[in-house]
Each structure stands twice: as C-alpha cells, then as structure tokens.
C-alpha cells in the first residue's frame, strides 16, 4: 500500500491536526479529539447555524466546507464511519447563537441515526434543530425510492445555498424549507475506474477490472448500476447526463449549475474533458449553464473516477450561487 501515513489508526487524527495547524484563521477545534470543528469565529450572531458531519476520507467533504459563506461546523468520524452523536452535539453547541441549527448531511444510516440522536439531545438543551438530508445520488435507488438515495457530491450545493440564504437572515423554518427545495433539484451520478485503499485495511476495498468502469458506484465503493468496458469521455458524459435529465422527469430544466467532481486520482485535465462534453450536450438541448464547478469536491481517498451533478436553478438560486465563500479547500471570491 502506497500511502503517506504513519500508524493507520492515527490517520484521521493526524489529518485533523494538520488541518488545524494549516488553517488557524479558519478552523477551530472544540473537542480534545478534534472531532468537532467549527469556524474560527463561531458562533456567528444573528444567523441560523449550519452543521454537517460524516465519515472521513472524503476531503473536502465534510469538514472542508466549514467557512464564511459555508457551514458553521462539522463533526468528523473515522474513515468512512459516522461520528458520534456527542461529537455532533458538541459541534452544535459551539455554533448555535440562538437562531437554531440546520443539520445538512448525506443519507447514510449511521449519520442519520447519530444526527437524530444529537438533535434530540440538542432539543433537550433548548437548541432548536431542523434537518435536511442530502439524497442526490440517482444511481443509488430508483426514483420511486428517492427518499432512500445516498448523498454524494451534490451536497456542496446544499451547503452553499443554505449558507447564503442563512446569511440573508432566513429563519430556521424558512431555511429548512428552502434547502429541501434545493435538495429536490440536485442530482448526481458517478463513475469509478479504480478502487480506494482504506488506511487500516491496506488493500483495495474492491476491484474494478482493467479497462472496465462502474457507473453509479458510491463514494465508499457501494456497488453501481452498470459495469462495462471503459468508454470514451464523451460517451460517459452523454450516458451520465442522459440519466440525470431523465431523472428530472417532467420538471422544467432550463438553467443549471454543473459540478464535475473528481473522486481522488482523476487528473483535472480529464475532468475538463468531461465538462466540455457536458456543456456541449446541454447547449444542444437548449439548457443554459449558469455556473460550473470542476475539481475535487467529494473524494474517496485515491479512487479514480468522477461524478457529475446538476443543480436545476431559478433566479433566486442563481443569485445565491454567486455569493462569495471561503473554506480551507475552495473559495469563491467576488474579485
């Protein structure tokens, strides 16, 4: 196994120590184990706070989205493992400023159960909590079981838009309602070419044959919906976009934001080759692109692959999307 690491059991602790020492102006730890991180300036007054969390190994997900114009705090689990309710509660307490807290996280049972538990504990402490669960992976369940879909890279849009809306003064109920609406308009599908290696396991978590790809594979290697021989970038782009557009059904889709997300080992050049085709296809269908994001937004350690997310936008969403944000990994300036 070729990893830059020391003892596998310290993998995440040391990552967190590195992150905290690299970004002291952006991040603050509120637990000795560093498993609850918040904005350096938390709690931010007069704003609903946004908390996320989940297993590690997906940087910039989840804690990497802590920052101005993004989320207020994140609890951190071990690699691919949910964090505990107590860690979530500690995060919650450190960011809330009386306006309530919105939990936004991906639909994985460990996360759901722990966040639910944290929410109950927070309510007992007099903190109002609402929850929106990211479910953007259209390959994880058929449309009829939409509520059971997993959350993947598209959660970026939930963070970004909820945060912008919160900064504009939305109250907790409005924020939840708005974020749920966004949630319904985000759709993602991924394709994997090679597996990732868990630090404490030391060998690939699964195998994908040489010259093969797996469409719909999840960010922990959950089985996909189509295995087959590797297609060209253009074929893959067409194939994935077709599936996403189909999933919108009768929804009007006229203007979208596109997110091409690398899973870890995919060169940026290749992400842009795929973006190129996506933009051509959408143009062909008369769908405008208001904003493109191309890069690493939700990874699976060193997995090779990518995902395409579309966000179906309206005017409000487009204007919120333009607002700046600043995190340790991505920034969007108003320069």
């Amino acid at each position, binding site marked *: 196994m070729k990893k830059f690491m020391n003892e596998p059991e310290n993998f995440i602790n040391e990552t967190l120590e590195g992150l905290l020492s690299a970004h002291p102006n952006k991040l603050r730890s509120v637990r000795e184990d560093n498993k609850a991180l918040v904005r350096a300036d938390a709690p931010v007054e007069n704003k609903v706070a946004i908390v996320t969390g989940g297993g590690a190994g997906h940087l910039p997900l989840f804690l990497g989205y802590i920052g101005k114009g993004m989320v207020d705090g994140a609890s951190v689990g071990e690699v691919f493992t949910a964090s*505990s309710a107590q860690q979530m509660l500690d995060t919650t307490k450190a960011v809330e400023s009386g306006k309530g807290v919105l939990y936004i996280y991906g639909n994985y049972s*460990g996360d759901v159960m722990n966040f639910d538990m944290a929410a109950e504990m927070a309510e007992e402490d007099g903190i109002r909590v609402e929850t929106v669960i990211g479910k953007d992976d259209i390959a994880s369940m058929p449309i009829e079981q939409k509520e059971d879909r997993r959350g993947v890279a598209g959660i970026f849009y939930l963070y970004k838009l909820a945060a912008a809306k919160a900064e504009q003064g939305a109250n907790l109920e409005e924020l939840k309602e708005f974020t749920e609406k966004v949630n319904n308009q985000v759709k993602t599908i991924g394709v994997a070419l090679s597996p990732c290696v868990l630090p404490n396991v030391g060998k690939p978590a699964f195998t994908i044959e040489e010259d093969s790809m797996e469409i719909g594979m999840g960010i922990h290697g959950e089985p996909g919906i189509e295995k087959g021989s590797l297609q060209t970038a253009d074929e893959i782009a067409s194939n994935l976009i077709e599936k996403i557009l189909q999933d919108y059904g009768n929804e009007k889709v006229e203007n979208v934001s596109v997110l091409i997300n690398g899973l870890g080992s995919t060169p940026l050049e290749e992400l842009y080759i795929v973006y190129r085709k996506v933009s051509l296809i959408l143009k062909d269908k008369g769908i405008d692109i208001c904003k493109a994001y191309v890069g690493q937004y939700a990874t699976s350690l060193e997995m090779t692959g990518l995902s395409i997310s579309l966000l179906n936008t309206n005017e409000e969403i487009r204007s919120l999307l333009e607002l700046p944000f600043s995190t340790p990994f991505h920034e969007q300036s108003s320069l």
Partner: protein
Amino acid sequence: MNSLNIDDFKNIFSEISTLMNDNKNYLCELDGVLGDGDIGVTMASGFSFVKKELQEKQSLGDFGQFFRTCGSVMSEKAPSTMGTLLGSGFIKASKSLKGKESLDQSDLVELFNQINDGIQSRGKAEIGDKTILDALTPAVKALEKEKNASIETMILEAYKAAEVGMKQTIEMQSNKGRGARYQENSKGKQDPGATVAKLIFEGFRIYINQHKAI
C-alpha cells in the same frame, strides 16, 4: 431471585463485555458477509468502554444514571449502526428507570421494552427486516409472558427466544443497513446484529446462573 440491583448490573455488563470479546471474530465474520465486517470489533470495544466506565464512575445512584452512562459511552465510543442503536436503547430506558435502585420482574420487562423501543424508533426497522430486532423483540415478548415467574426463568426464556429469533434471521431478506444492498442474496446468512442481541441475553443468563448456584 426477584430483583437485581446496580451491582448485579455492573457484573452483568462485565459478562457481556467478556462475551463480546470472546465472540469478536465470529461476529466480524458474520458482518463480513452482510456488511463491512466490523461489528465484532466495535461491540467488543464498545462494551469494554461501558464496563470500564461503570466500574470507575462514582455517581451511579439509580438505574436512570446507570443506563444514561451505558448509552452515552456506547454511542460515543462505538458510533457504528449497532453501537448507536444500543446507545439509543439504553438512553431511552434510562428515562423510564429514573430513581429506581433495584429492578423487579416488571421493571425488567419495562427495561427491555424501552431498549427495544429506543432501537426501533432510532432505526425504523420492522420485525422481519433481518436486524437486531428480530432477536430482541421475541425476547421482550418472552419476558412479558414470564413476568410472574422468577427472574431466572424470565431470563432463560428470553435468552431462548433471542436465540430462536437469531436463527430465524437466516431465512430473512435484509431490508435495513448495509445488508439490504444484497437484496435476495442476503438470505441464508445469520444477521450479526441479531447475534449481538442473543449474546446480551447470554450475558444475563450466565450471571444469573452463577448467582443461582451460590
């Protein structure tokens, strides 16, 4: 035997911790087939943290505090599905056992009813979904049925029911957790979570048996 006090329960949790440790590999193997293969490790470590905390903590005046401690240690140290579910069950139970310093037969029924409820409302699984509930719920029913008998009898019957329930999960199709993604193929394999439930009752049984013997 008609009641169990805090010290009894400390010993019972110690028995359970030993059992989880002895069955670590067995549990991991079961979870390796239907899940991610970690349940033995998390249960052994989760229960050993619980045991340690119960032995060290001073202020365990009542069963409210006792199960609050079990619940928060378990969820904090083992935030996997099983750890979180057990944690939720223990915390639910702690609320209705506030103030009690010993548990009689009907309290025992209440305890496991609450644990069962806590797990059910956290995990939203139904009977037949091939989960811990398929061993736990029949055991709770057995406790209820025997609530006029001795605690020895109650526990023995509960243990037997849990074991039967555990074996019945073999034929079930998984509908919750990682096992669910195997759909039809999940059949023919024993559910690791149900096995944990059976081991918990086994811990009670061993302790009670030793006591009866004295």
